[in-house]
């Protein structure tokens, strides 16, 4: 079944784990530190019921969570409707935002009494913030006031009432309140004219909303813009008349997870827990294509194509974030010089190098690079948001650094920005001079990327990818793709020799050549053919004519699988050495040390700056690889048969 994206969905989060209830149960029984496990569960798109279950577990483990990095938050709630479902969802949602929320809700129908009476249970709870969940009914704005001046009078009275509740909280508990705007009621009395007619419900609600922030908020108070949330969902979906009539439930229960998330953003932001830095991948995130392969002219960016404009929109928004004080960084698997090219040379690039406080382009794993970025900026990794189109990179970062926010952005660049913003990572409760200046501050100590130590357990990660690598000789089926790779690959390409499809056919049928087409699949999907090897067989020396690989699978040890396959074949035919050349081009600096890394000995310098390397086949030991190899043995067998 194809599911259209629901406007209620927490699109940026992964779906819940399948054994959710069992994991929650284990959590309650387990006596060890449960914070990480709870965080991992909460970081999923949980539904109403799951939020409730996890919330209970959090309450049950409250004592052991108090000593963790979760920030305690005691939220008092005074609602003029049934807020119970929202309240139930808050503890689990809060963990997603770094909060350990404890709630007290005033009894149904007792909101005003609880707030106005200093000795009420609401104040005995010792809240550090009080959420005034008011609605048009509780504020006297639900009935039209068509008498002269009636609308203005009703709005003024509603604002006064709100202010009196706020003042009571301030003076009794000495803490701030959260005020909320009112979702526009769905019913209309006049139609479009509602907005022209003072006293229509729509006019009163909208006027109240406009005046609320300016007139009813004092320092320490925060605004929850529930009206904006309801509009983004769609009012006809947000409102659910049946639930309102049955139990004074103010909006569709489908909206509870989303509403809870938005409310928790405000709570977290008020405690300084919002994210501070947006880390951007480059290829297929800020532009379409691979800069190292496609070059400045070949990448997709800018007016004239849908994708090009989508990437532009991401850059535009990133610039706006920077203006409001969010720090931008780059983390890309690329040669540094290649990565900077579009910033310097592409006319439609909006982001400049100056916008990027830390620019990291190398081949180290991204989790390590993110740690480096955080260190350079002197912030914690929990302040980072990491935007990357590649699901394997996202998964790797989530495994290594669960505290980094990594939105699930899908595969269409047009979705990247809406999903990033829907996640609300950069929620703010204020904006001031310091924010305006911050970007420039970081710019002053902009850090240039440097080669980094590899941290984190790479092998564990690779094993978790469930990779399957297939290695087969050239054949008719793969011929077109082989020719395409041979003519397109620039970075991971040892000799950059280009061959036509006809020439590829020649290698395929010539017994003097040993050929490999390599495919890689992992649990995120099939990468298709990603590597091509052509070896010229000799009596004693086999020479590497062509060896190339797509950079998408860099760091997956595919080149080791290829080498082990080639050596096995060469050994079988009695060869002694494998010879490889690196022929430099402006784009293949990445593989300058390729043969050295694989254990080859340096033989000679070549004219034009290249190098020649040799591997002694007798002393080669095949490594243990974190992937299943398919077709390798049968390749060798087929070859042996062909010899007969």
């Amino acid at each position, binding site marked *: 079944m194809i599911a259209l994206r629901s406007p209620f969905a927490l699109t940026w989060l992964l779906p819940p784990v399948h054994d959710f*209830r069992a994991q929650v149960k284990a959590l309650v029984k387990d006596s060890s530190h449960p914070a990480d496990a709870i965080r991992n569960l909460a970081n999923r798109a949980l539904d*109403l019921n799951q939020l409730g279950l996890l919330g209970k577990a959090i309450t049950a483990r409250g004592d052991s969570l108090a000593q963790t990095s979760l920030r305690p938050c005691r939220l008092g709630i005074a609602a003029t409707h049934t807020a119970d*479902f929202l309240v139930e969802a808050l503890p689990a949602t809060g963990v997603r935002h770094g909060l350990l929320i404890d709630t007290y809700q005033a009894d149904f129908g007792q909101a005003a009494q609880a707030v106005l009476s200093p000795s009420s249970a609401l104040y005995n709870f010792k809240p550090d913030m009080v959420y005034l969940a008011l609605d048009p009914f509780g504020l006297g704005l639900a009935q039209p006031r068509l008498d002269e001046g009636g609308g203005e009078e009703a709005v003024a009275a509603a604002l006064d009432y709100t202010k009196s509740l706020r003042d009571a909280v301030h003076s009794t508990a000495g803490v701030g309140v959260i005020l909320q705007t009112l979702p526009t009621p769905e019913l209309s009395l006049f139609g479009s004219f509602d907005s022209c007619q003072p006293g229509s419900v729509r006019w009163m609600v909208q006027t109240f909303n406009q005046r609320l922030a300016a007139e009813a908020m004092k320092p320490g108070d925060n605004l929850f813009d529930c009206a904006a949330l309801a509009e983004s969902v769609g009012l006809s979906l947000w409102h659910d008349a*049946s*639930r309102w009539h049955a139990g004074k439930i103010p909006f569709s229960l489908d909206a509870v997870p989303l509403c809870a998330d938005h409310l928790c953003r405000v709570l977290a932001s008020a405690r300084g827990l919002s994210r501070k830095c947006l880390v951007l991948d480059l290829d297929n995130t800020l532009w379409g294509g691979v800069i190292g392969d496609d070059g400045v002219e070949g990448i997709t960016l800018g007016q004239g194509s849908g994708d090009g404009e989508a990437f532009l929109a991401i850059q535009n928004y990133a610039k706006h974030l920077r203006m409001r004080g969010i720090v931008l960084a780059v983390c890309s698997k690329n040669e540094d010089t290649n990565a900077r090219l579009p910033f310097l040379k592409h006319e439609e690039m909006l982001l400049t190098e100056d916008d990027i406080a830390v620019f990291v382009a190398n081949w180290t794993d991204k989790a390590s690079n993110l740690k480096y970025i955080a260190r350079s900026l002197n912030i914690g990794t929990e302040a980072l948001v990491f935007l990357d189109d590649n699901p394997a990179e996202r998964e790797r970062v989530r495994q290594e650094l669960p505290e980094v926010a990594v939105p699930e952005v899908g595969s269409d660049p047009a979705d990247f920005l809406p999903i990033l913003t829907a996640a609300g990572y950069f929620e703010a409760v204020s904006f001031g001079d310091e924010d305006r200046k911050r970007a420039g501050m970081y710019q002053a100590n902009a850090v240039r990327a440097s080669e980094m130590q590899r941290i984190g357990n790479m092998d564990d990660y690779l094993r978790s990818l469930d990779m399957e690598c297939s290695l087969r000789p050239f054949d008719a089926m793969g011929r077109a793709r082989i020719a395409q790779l041979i003519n397109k690959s620039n970075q991971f390409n040892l000799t950059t020799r280009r061959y036509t499809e006809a020439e590829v056919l020649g290698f395929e049928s010539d017994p003097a050549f040993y050929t490999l087409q390599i495919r890689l699949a992992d649990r995120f999907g099939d990468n298709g053919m990603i590597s091509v090897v052509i070896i010229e067989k000799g009596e004693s020396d086999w020479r590497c004519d062509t060896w190339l690989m797509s950079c998408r699978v860099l760091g997956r040890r595919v080149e080791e699988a290829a080498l082990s396959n080639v050596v096995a074949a060469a050994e079988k035919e009695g060869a002694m050495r494998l010879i490889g050349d690196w022929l430099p081009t402006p784009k293949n600096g990445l593989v300058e040390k390729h043969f050295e890394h694989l254990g080859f000995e340096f033989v000679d310098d070549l004219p034009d700056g290249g190098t020649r390397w040799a591997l002694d086949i007798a002393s080669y030991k095949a490594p243990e690889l974190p992937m299943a190899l398919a077709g390798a043995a049968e390749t060798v067998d087929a070859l042996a048969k062909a010899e007969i």
Partner: protein
Amino acid sequence: MTRSEITMQVIDLMEDVFDVDDLEYNDALTAADIEEWDSLSNIRFVVAIEKEFGIRFANSEISDLENVGAMVDLILVKKT
């Protein structure tokens, strides 16, 4: 969809919503029999059923239900 198929799905939902393992189901079960079944979880239960079966109940339909069996019957009517 048969009545027993619907019942199996309802049992799964009840275990999730009321947080009980291995529910000993019979058609006569009511809120009094299950600890976690209160007025709030009852609404969650109704919402979960609506979502699972792609149906919608009028308030009057659910306020009259005597037990789970009656709920299953109502789903059956709506699904056929």
